[in-house]
């Protein structure tokens, strides 16, 4: 028999899962707040650089625990029907776009980003796969460069003659 969401235990509910994630975040925030260096004499003042973070840590942990104990819904989390592979691939693609935009230049990086994105989303028309990314990249670059005066390296440094 297929296990239902409720049989997996209450911790898998939307609210509790979110509360657990935020509890971890708030705890990490609290730990890092202890690394904030105070200036000499600051310890005795009512307000210093660590005051707000300390208060927020306490508030965040309290609220997370309250939500963990009193969730507003016991509905199972909706993380199952999600195409996680696609999410990871798009995350990687966006990150790579960020890394490539300077060395490859705007036009090449943008064309590659769009071409791979279209392909990942099952676009199979070769005409669309090639023409739209290039047209968007060149058009966008032209608007920036020619109309708004924003300079973007269009091509890789070795092709633009920049060392």
């Amino acid at each position: 028999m297929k296990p239902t969401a409720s049989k997996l235990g209450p911790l898998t509910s939307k609210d509790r899962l979110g509360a657990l994630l935020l509890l971890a975040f708030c705890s990490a925030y609290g730990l890092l707040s202890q690394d904030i260096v105070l200036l000499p004499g600051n310890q005795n003042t009512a307000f210093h650089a660590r005051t707000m973070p300390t208060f927020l840590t306490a508030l965040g942990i309290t609220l997370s625990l309250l939500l963990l104990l009193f969730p507003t819904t016991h509905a199972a989390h909706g993380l199952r029907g999600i195409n996680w592979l696609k999410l990871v691939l798009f995350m990687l693609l966006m990150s790579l776009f960020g890394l490539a935009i300077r060395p490859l230049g705007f036009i090449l990086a943008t064309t590659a980003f769009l071409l791979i994105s279209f392909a990942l989303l099952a676009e199979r028309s070769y005409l669309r796969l090639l023409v739209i990314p290039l047209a968007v990249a060149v058009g966008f670059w032209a608007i920036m460069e020619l109309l708004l005066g924003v300079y973007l390296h269009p091509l890789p440094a070795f092709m633009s003659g920049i060392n």
Partner: protein
Amino acid sequence: MLEGLLIGLGTALSLHNMMFLLVGCFAGTVIGMLPGLGPMSAIALMIPIASTLDPAAGLIMMAAVYYGAIFGGSTSSILINAPGVASTVATSFDGYPMARQGKAGKALAIAAGASFAGGIIAALLLVLAAPALATVSLSFQSTDYFALMVLGLASVAAFAGSGGILKALLMTTVGLMLATVGSDQTQGIPRFTLGMIDLVDGISFLLLVMATFALSEALMAIVKPDRETGLAQERKASQNLGSMSVTRDELADIAPAVGRASILGFLVGLLPGAGATIASFLAYGSEQRIARPDQRRRFGHGSVRGLAAPEAANNAAATGSFVPLLTLGIPGSGTTAIMLGALIAYGIQPGPMLYINEPGVFWSVIVSMWIGNAVLLMLNLPLIPYVARVLTIPSQILLPLILLFSLTGVYLVTFNTFDIQMMVIFAAAAVIFRLLEFPLAPMILGFILGGMIEENLRRALLIYDNSWSFLWERPLTLGILCITIFVLIAPLLRAIRTR
């Protein structure tokens, strides 16, 4: 006031600003029409362009994008029963049944007309209310501002919907935490920078807004494809809109409802946190209650009053929410929080002094609301059948384009590739919290107000010689804090009573 209005008219009616107003209305409508992309995403997507303009033009364009997106959201509500934003949910109650009866054109015309009337009436009330409130707020001190900001955050959480208060408060806290990243405002002590030089200036507001709204919305559509079914339906619906003409009887039926809903919407919009969603539901509910029995039966089955009232109310509330932003510098909603961030980026500190120091900006935004609403009516209504065709762009083309414009929009402001990596991380977190149904708007509000809350609290403590007694010694501060406690406790009491 007349002088101010003339200054505003002069600024808003300049060819340069009119052009950006048109662009804003059009872009807002197109973006707002795409299911899932609401006013916040629309404004976020337009910030990189607005940041290249002068403050008046930039704000006029963003305000135009705001009500353009609300109008665009109504279109997807009416055509395919897929409200892009919560504030247009009530519109779909009667708008969608009308569309199914082959009266989509008429429903769109009524929605546009009611939005126009709501916007105009509210802008008129704004002219009367804003200067008065700005004058009163000149007597506010840091302690009062601190209390007001806490009230603003609490109100947003309290209006988060049934059972959502704890989640909204938690997300607000996360926003406040993110606001502490970077150098401490007065002493320059680095906080939470993890030794990275790129974090010394803190997290960029644009980056956070783009990642949590535009980017995560597009990613949601990619990872959860059932959300896109609306696009296919809209494609069919947009091809057959029917007649757009409204009969005289229908007009007579709508007019009083629009008047009532506009005033109600404006008043609700004034309250921090309430906003357009609450206004539209309240207007729909109150019209249903006061309707004659025969009219009441038509609610939910294509009633023109049921469609016009929430439309007028949500636009009026959108206008009303500008009052606390422009006069107190405190945003009443996620959208106005983004506008506040943009104002600060321009080096303009909203608040009572904006009315005195920057009358051109203050009044041109108000005047642009009138002009913008007229533009929406005259330009968008005839264009709706054509604008709706943007939805015929296949999602496998449209979604990567949204991703690209979000990423490059942020990159073009700082030219720092680290920002793109940060966006990816925030977008991933936003997708997860969206899937878990945690609200993201309170986080943005917390992030925007975080720095100001800390600064005002620090100043208040300085004035009161490191004593927290200002919390109970100053009557105005105490009064606002009492309201805050009430706002937080009321939903809990209601929940206990319901159980």
